[in-house]
């Protein structure tokens, strides 16, 4: 009994951690703030274990304990307490919330290393843990709602943690708004519960549920389901979850895989007594929404290349599984799968975080490959997680998934078979896409050094640019040569003109001589000497003119001789230009002939012969970088979760002998699940169904291994050959299916997601805007129009009352 009194400590520790970090988080700094946060979670986990032991000491029927701390809203008939409800369901939830929470805190110390807001991160994480534990432990709907909102707010804060990135801020916004829609359902349901029962305390209204009006129960169940759909990311409210991957990876692991997103399933499980009273079709609706979401998200996951996006869609898909279980009344299976999923999905997320951490924050799987040697611990644990989710026995996921499929089958009729079949297809797809992820990440060729298609393209462009440069030079040379020819021709003309002028000069000079001579003939003694000198000078002039003519003729000759030389130069330059153009054409031909670089060159290095020297600098930089394994704070949680993913299934094994021992979880949850679905199927059916499920998993894995590993196994050449020889696989399936209808199908699904669903959300927004915009026109700014509004209101009111009056 004393142990049970500790229940308030479970949320108190994270709250304490939150307050401590709020007050002195910043001065504590890294890594002390992280350790404080972790210690708070450890305390919470310890308290949970103690309470768990306390509950165990009770008889099964007495395993329910209410603790009221204080009156919260002490208001007459509507009084709400801050009180905790410790029962098998809530404590089971608390165990894995605080346990996994603690591991993720440890992990975060390594992951957030060097972040500017290190202590703030842990502050939020602790606040989140507090809210989540309040959600689970609250003994009434309003307190659960409070926790519900609290986790939403923390999720919003943590998604936007790196809010300098606009995408993150937008994602946070999307999460906030989508969840408001779900909250609306929750609130109305709360009012309805209060209205029907006069209380919103679980221990008071759930026992009163039997015999209530079916319509009310249906309404409440559906409204709560709307709330759950928002929080647990079910179609069509799943939108925000993939976007939420913008936040830090530990957040994705803790909030968007293990804890918060499962609160919808928790809620429905908690009020299973109410759902039981609702109309039959409610369960079916839940199951079909669940299984539909599961299949839908799985098909999307197949087409993703971002390592975290695959896991995000996978989470949506697995949550759909859990809703399938809830819808078919298999609450134990739902909780079971929730717990195992928390183990292996947290493991996968943390593993992906470790990969991202090691790969310089590159999240594109096409750039990975063969990482298992470089990240040994991460890859080993990740592979365990993969086997668990893919449904390989004896890993945890197999058992829980099998139980859900069994429950679906057991619903009976065509409906049950159909649910089962869709679930099975989903299981196959799950195995496929997870294998694909593992193969692309840890196996195959190390592709981080590869130039990406964009970079190859850039290299080709570089090379063509270089060729183009040569051509430009040749053209310039050709133009210069042509110019020279022109110049030479012009020089001839000039020389001819000059020669003409010179020739004209000779008669003038000769005339001068005549004049001088005539003057000499009439000369007197005084000027004879002078005139003689003049004649001599004139005669010299004639000689000079004649000499110039000779020079001019020589120049003309030279000019004429230059023209052919210049013309020859032009011919040479033209040839060079043609040569360069040819070279460019050759490069372009080469580029055209070069194989189109695949987005994911999984199996062979991209063909970059011819452009090696032109690759952009980033490639060289990347080649300098080597992936590295993460620090122990990150690998330790991976190890623990890997062990849990292996043994998690032992919580509830489907063996029929020694029932009580194997079905531990079922017996544990027994007192809280008055209306769970009892499996009617025989042992043989169970066994057969399990075999089919295993087969589906193996087919999925095998298919993916063949597609994505393509012979890089122990005997690479042989497998590759056989695949090529058979031809059906690669060519038919991959090219035709994946590249043809399959691709189109997946594209269609992605298109539907992006256009219709997003469009509907945006559409509501634009309708609101449209209405607002129209109504806005009534606000004309003219006071007399406003007065008309008042008068219209007055007349309408008087008119109404006049109609009501008894005359």
């Amino acid at each position, binding site marked *: 009994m004393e142990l049970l009194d500790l229940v308030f400590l479970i949320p108190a520790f994270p709250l304490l951690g939150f307050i401590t970090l709020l007050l002195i988080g910043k001065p504590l700094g890294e890594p002390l703030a992280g350790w404080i946060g972790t210690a708070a979670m450890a305390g919470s986990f310890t308290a949970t274990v103690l309470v768990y032991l306390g509950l165990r000491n009770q008889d099964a029927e007495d395993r329910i304990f209410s603790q009221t701390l204080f009156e919260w809203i002490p208001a007459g008939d509507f009084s709400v307490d801050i009180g905790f409800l410790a029962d098998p369901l809530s404590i089971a939830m608390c165990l894995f919330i605080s346990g996994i929470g603690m591991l993720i805190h440890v992990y975060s110390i390594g992951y957030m290393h060097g972040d500017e807001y290190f202590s703030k991160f842990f502050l939020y994480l602790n606040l989140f843990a507090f809210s989540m534990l309040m959600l689970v432990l609250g003994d009434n709907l309003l307190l659960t709602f409070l926790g519900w909102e609290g986790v939403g707010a923390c999720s919003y804060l943590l998604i936007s943690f790196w809010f300098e990135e606009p995408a993150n801020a937008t994602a946070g916004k999307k999460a906030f708004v989508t969840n408001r829609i779900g909250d609306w359902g929750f609130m109305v349901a709360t009012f309805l519960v209060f209205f029907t029962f006069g209380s919103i305390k679980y221990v008071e209204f759930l026992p009163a549920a039997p015999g209530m009006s079916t319509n009310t129960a249906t309404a409440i169940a559906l409204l709560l389901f709307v709330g759950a759909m928002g929080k647990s990311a079910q179609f069509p409210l799943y939108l925000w979850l993939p976007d939420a991957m913008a936040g830090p990876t530990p957040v994705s692991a803790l909030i968007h895989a293990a804890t918060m997103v499962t609160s919808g399933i928790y809620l429905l499980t908690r009020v299973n007594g109410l759902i039981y009273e609702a109309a039959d079709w409610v369960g079916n609706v839940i199951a079909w929404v669940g299984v539909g979401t599961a299949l839908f998200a799985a098909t999307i996951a197949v087409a993703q290349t971002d390592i975290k996006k695959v896991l995000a869609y996978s989470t949506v898909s697995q949550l759909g599984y859990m809703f399938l279980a809830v819808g078919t009344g298999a609450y134990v299976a739902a909780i079971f799968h929730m717990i195992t999923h928390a183990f292996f999905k947290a493991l996968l997320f943390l593993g992906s975080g470790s990969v991202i951490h090691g790969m310089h924050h590159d999240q594109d799987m096409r750039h990975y490959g063969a990482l298992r040697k470089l990240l040994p611990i991460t890859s080993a644990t990740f592979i365990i997680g993969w086997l668990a989710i893919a449904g390989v026995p004896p890993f945890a996921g197999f058992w829980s998934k099998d139980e859900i499929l069994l429950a679906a089958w057991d619903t009976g009729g065509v409906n049950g078979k159909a649910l089962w079949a869709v679930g099975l297809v989903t299981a196959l797809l799950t195995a496929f896409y997870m294998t694909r992820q593992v193969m692309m990440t840890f196996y195959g060729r190390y592709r981080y050094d590869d130039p990406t298609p964009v970079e190859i393209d850039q290299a080709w462009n570089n090379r063509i640019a270089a060729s183009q440069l040569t051509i430009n030079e040749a053209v310039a040379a050709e133009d210069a040569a042509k110019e020279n020819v022109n110049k030479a021709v012009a020089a001839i003309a000039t020389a001819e003109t000059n020669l003409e002028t010179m020739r004209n000069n000779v008669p003038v000079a000769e005339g001068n001589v005549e004049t001088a001579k005539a003057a000499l003939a009439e000369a007197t003694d005084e000027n004879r000497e002078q005139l003689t000198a003049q004649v001599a000078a004139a005669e010299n002039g004639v000689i000079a003119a004649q000499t110039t003519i000779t020079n001019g003729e020589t120049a003309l000759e030279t000019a004429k001789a230059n023209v052919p030389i210049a013309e020859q130069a032009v011919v040479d330059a033209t040839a060079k230009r043609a040569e360069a153009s040819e070279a460019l054409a050759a490069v372009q031909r080469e580029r055209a002939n070069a194989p189109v670089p695949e987005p994911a060159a999984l199996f062979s290095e991209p063909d970059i012969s011819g452009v090696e020297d032109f690759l952009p600098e980033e490639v060289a930089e990347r080649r300098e970088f080597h992936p590295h394994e993460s620090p122990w704070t990150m690998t330790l949680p991976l190890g623990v979760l890997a062990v849990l993913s292996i043994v998690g299934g032992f919580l509830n094994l489907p063996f029929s002998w020694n029932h009580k021992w194997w079905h531990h979880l079922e017996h544990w949850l027994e007192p809280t699940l008055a209306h769970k679905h009892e499996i009617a199927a025989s042992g043989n059916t169970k066994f057969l169904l399990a075999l089919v499920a295993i087969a589906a998993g193996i087919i999925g894995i095998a298919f993916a291994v063949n597609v994505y590993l393509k012979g890089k196994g122990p005997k690479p050449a042989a497998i590759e050959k056989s695949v090529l020889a058979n031809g059906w696989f690669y060519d038919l399936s991959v090219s035709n299916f994946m590249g043809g209808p399959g691709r189109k199908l997946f594209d269609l699904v992605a298109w539907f997601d992006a256009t219709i669903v997003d469009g509907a959300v945006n559409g509501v927004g634009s309708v609101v805007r449209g209405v607002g915009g129209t109504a806005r026109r009534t606000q004309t700014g*003219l006071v*007399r*129009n406003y007065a*008309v509004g008042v*008068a*219209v209101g*007055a*007349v309408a009111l*008087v*008119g109404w009352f*006049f109609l009501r*009056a008894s*005359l």
Partner: protein
Amino acid sequence: MVEVIVFFVCAAIVLGGAAGVIIARNPVHSALFLIQTLFGMAVLFISLEAHFLAAVQVVVYAGAIVILFLFVIMLLGVDQAEDLNIEPIVGQRFVAGILSLGIFFLVTASLVGSEDAITGARGSSGQIVDETVKPNVEQLAETLFTDYVFAFEATAILLTIAVVGAVVLARRTKGDMLDTPKNTLEIREENYQARIDARAAELEAEAAGNNSAAEAPDSAEAGDDLVDAADATDGGEA
């Protein structure tokens, strides 16, 4: 008989005045029509044996409130006629007509039945309207200072607010307007100043003309220029 005639005459005066208020283009006329309505109302009060109110109606309403209106109209010089042929808001008059008719008919319809309905409602003030028991003023006073004494005291606050409010709003302020680039008041004052200057120049020119005729034209021209400038500004404003 006399009552009926008095009623109809007064009703005609009251409604005619009211119609005048809303039809008159010039606000001064509207105010005068308002006085007409108020006087008609005073007579109706007398016929309803509310003698003191009739007096108050004339003294306070017609004598103070309407005068206040006229005072403000004159002070601001806003007595320019409003062009009632134009209604800038489409359909406003039609809607206004429908709505006021609606109010009138609905209220009237509500009134019609109520007269005959035996409600048993008698005044709860304990003061019976009967001049033979006590004079009207005395009855009023007694009710005012018993049942309505709190309301009476509350009017003190109301009147204080009115005074403070009027002072706050109507006093001249320092500083520029914050939300208009160049406020119209300044433009008006500039125009005004320009006219004054022009007039002053004219006068000066006349005075100068007596002394020496030669200088006069220049000054006059300068004045005209100013007037022109003022007109231009006016036009720009319009």
